[in-house]
């Protein structure tokens, strides 16, 4: 049974077509794997086993009856718990302030998944309100990296990344505001894609930073990521910031992809102080491999990289302070049990419901927007944001993509960066610019450190060129063969890859 979970989603679909397995078996295997491992990994916040099995069964029946099927029919998937699901599971954003919140509507991407026939097995853990780089900020306890349970999976989409890395599900959705898909993808050895801003509807994604948030897929292969993106991408009239632009065939872009003639830019600012030597070695090796495969490589410059973190943390926290103002215990969410008047109720409910990092960011953002400081902080950050975007515009006039490390280090230990919030912010140094510039970015595994920890290669390209990114990921993925290595944790399953304990 466990072998099933070694299949990619595309391989699963093929197996289903050939009658070699059933959806019910796939979903059952997924649930068993979760049952066996999630006590330790803590990827999931909530599960819907009965409904999932019922849906799987229904998919099998449709398949048997020769009825038309969606592109993900019967495949088990996971969804980050900051995307609204209306089927009885709460949508908590890993926050105590929304611990019991039951959304009365499905997010656009959730509808898309269901419409494609996917079977959602559960909601995954995250840094509270997607604010964090390690999932240590979850209000319900951290997720552990399947490659080393003493280390973080990255964040904020740590749960989804871990679920895919531990092969609980072949694919999952996450969200990325400053690197929250790419960073955990890198630390967990999976593929993670942040699409162009506006490529995927944000309707139903609980907002952190409105002008930066995007939803994207986790998968173990570029092909699976392409399949997921195909399902969720597209215009949504309920999201005024979603672009009205046709969705290309991403799978076609990946199939038979090569990097011959691809012009790769390597930003010099990404290879300076703070970058771990092993990571650098693996990243440069991957770039060389591309060169060997026919790509040209040149050094480029993104001069404002040094200012990206400040810019991000001013823009994002300002928007976050505004987006999170609604959590006040009035219409939904946690309300303090003891309180005096209205204002007191607001203040206590929010104090009780929010974790420290969320509070910190709300305070920062409120400060940045407050009168007297707006020009110096928020407005200034918006101007620098334009400079950062212009950096990329200039570079993409010369190269087809920008390549570098996703994270300065491989997965770090719990508690290593929590003492100083600023040190945690610095882990986003390579990923943040893509969100600011609205361009797509992807992380693909390119090797392992000596300690056996995954390292990710980040690729960024111009707006609406996700196909190109996925193609490069396919080539790198094949070259490094990273997808075939599995976390040692999986060996602890009873009988090796046999029946779960």
């Amino acid at each position, binding site marked *: 049974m466990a072998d099933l979970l070694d299949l990619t989603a595309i391989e699963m679909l093929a197996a289903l077509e050939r009658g070699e397995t059933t959806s019910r078996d796939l979903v059952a295997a997924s649930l068993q794997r979760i049952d066996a491992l999630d006590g330790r990994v803590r990827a999931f916040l909530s599960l819907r086993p009965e409904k999932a099995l019922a849906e799987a069964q229904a998919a099998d029946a449709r398949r048997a009856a020769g009825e038309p099927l969606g592109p993900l029919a019967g495949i088990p998937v996971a969804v980050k718990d900051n995307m609204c699901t209306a089927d009885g599971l709460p949508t908590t954003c890993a926050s105590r302030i929304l611990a019991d919140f039951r959304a009365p509507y499905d997010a656009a991407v959730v509808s898309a998944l269901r419409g494609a026939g996917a079977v959602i097995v559960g909601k995954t853990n995250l840094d509270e309100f997607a604010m964090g780089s390690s999932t240590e900020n979850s209000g319900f306890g951290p997720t552990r990296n399947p490659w080393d349970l003493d280390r973080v999976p990255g964040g904020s989409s740590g749960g989804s990344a871990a679920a895919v890395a531990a092969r609980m599900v072949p694919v999952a959705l996450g969200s990325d505001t400053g690197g929250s898909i790419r960073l955990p993808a890198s630390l967990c050895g999976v593929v993670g894609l942040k699409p162009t801003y506006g490529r995927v509807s944000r309707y139903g994604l609980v907002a952190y930073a409105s002008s930066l948030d995007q939803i994207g897929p986790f998968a173990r292969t570029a092909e699976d990521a392409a399949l997921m993106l195909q399902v969720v991408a597209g215009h949504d009239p309920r999201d005024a910031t979603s672009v009205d632009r046709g969705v290309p065939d991403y799978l076609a872009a990946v199939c038979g992809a090569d990097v011959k003639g691809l012009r790769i830019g390597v930003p010099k600012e990404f290879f300076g102080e703070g970058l771990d030597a092993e990571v650098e070695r693996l990243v440069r090796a991957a770039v060389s491999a591309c060169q060997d495969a026919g790509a040209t490589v040149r050094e480029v410059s993104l001069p404002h990289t040094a200012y990206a973190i400040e810019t991000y943390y001013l823009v994002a926290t300002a928007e976050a302070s505004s987006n999170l103002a609604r959590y006040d215990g009035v219409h939904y969410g946690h309300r303090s049990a003891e309180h005096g008047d209205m204002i007191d109720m607001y203040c206590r409910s929010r104090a009780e419901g929010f974790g420290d990092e969320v509070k910190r960011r709300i305070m920062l953002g409120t400060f940045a927007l407050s009168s007297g400081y707006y020009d110096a902080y928020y407005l200034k950050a*918006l101007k620098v944001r334009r400079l950062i975007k212009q950096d990329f515009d200039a570079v993409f006039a010369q190269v087809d993509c920008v390549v570098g490390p996703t994270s300065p280090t491989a997965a770090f230990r719990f508690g290593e960066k929590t003492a100083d919030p600023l040190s945690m912010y610095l882990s986003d140094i390579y990923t943040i610019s893509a969100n600011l510039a609205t361009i797509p970015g992807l992380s693909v595994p390119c090797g392992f450190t000596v300690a056996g920890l995954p390292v990710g290669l980040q690729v960024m390209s111009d707006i609406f060129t996700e196909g190109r990114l996925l193609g490069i990921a396919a080539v790198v993925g094949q070259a490094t063969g990273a997808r075939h290595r599995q976390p040692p944790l999986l060996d602890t399953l009873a009988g090796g890859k046999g029946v779960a304990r």
Partner: protein
Amino acid sequence: MGIERDEVAKVARLARIAMTDRELDTFSEQLSRILNYFDKLAELDTTDVEPLSHALPVANVFRDDAPGKSLPVDVALSNAPERTEAAFKVPRVLDEASSA
């Protein structure tokens, strides 16, 4: 520039987050350090740079004035911490009538 403790208290009030004294101390220190780091931005000359306040260079997105489905009252109130039959219930507000 850093941020003074009483300024942090004001911001906490603006953000409607109750804080203990100890929290005020900790946050003051952390926020100060973060803001000092952010002062780096002042190094950049952005005199003629237009702020990027909207992520997309897109304009004129509208919807038609056509009625859609509203939620049943019970569903609308289903997450309310406190409710009457058809309304959200809150502690009495001392100020006079709402703004706008």
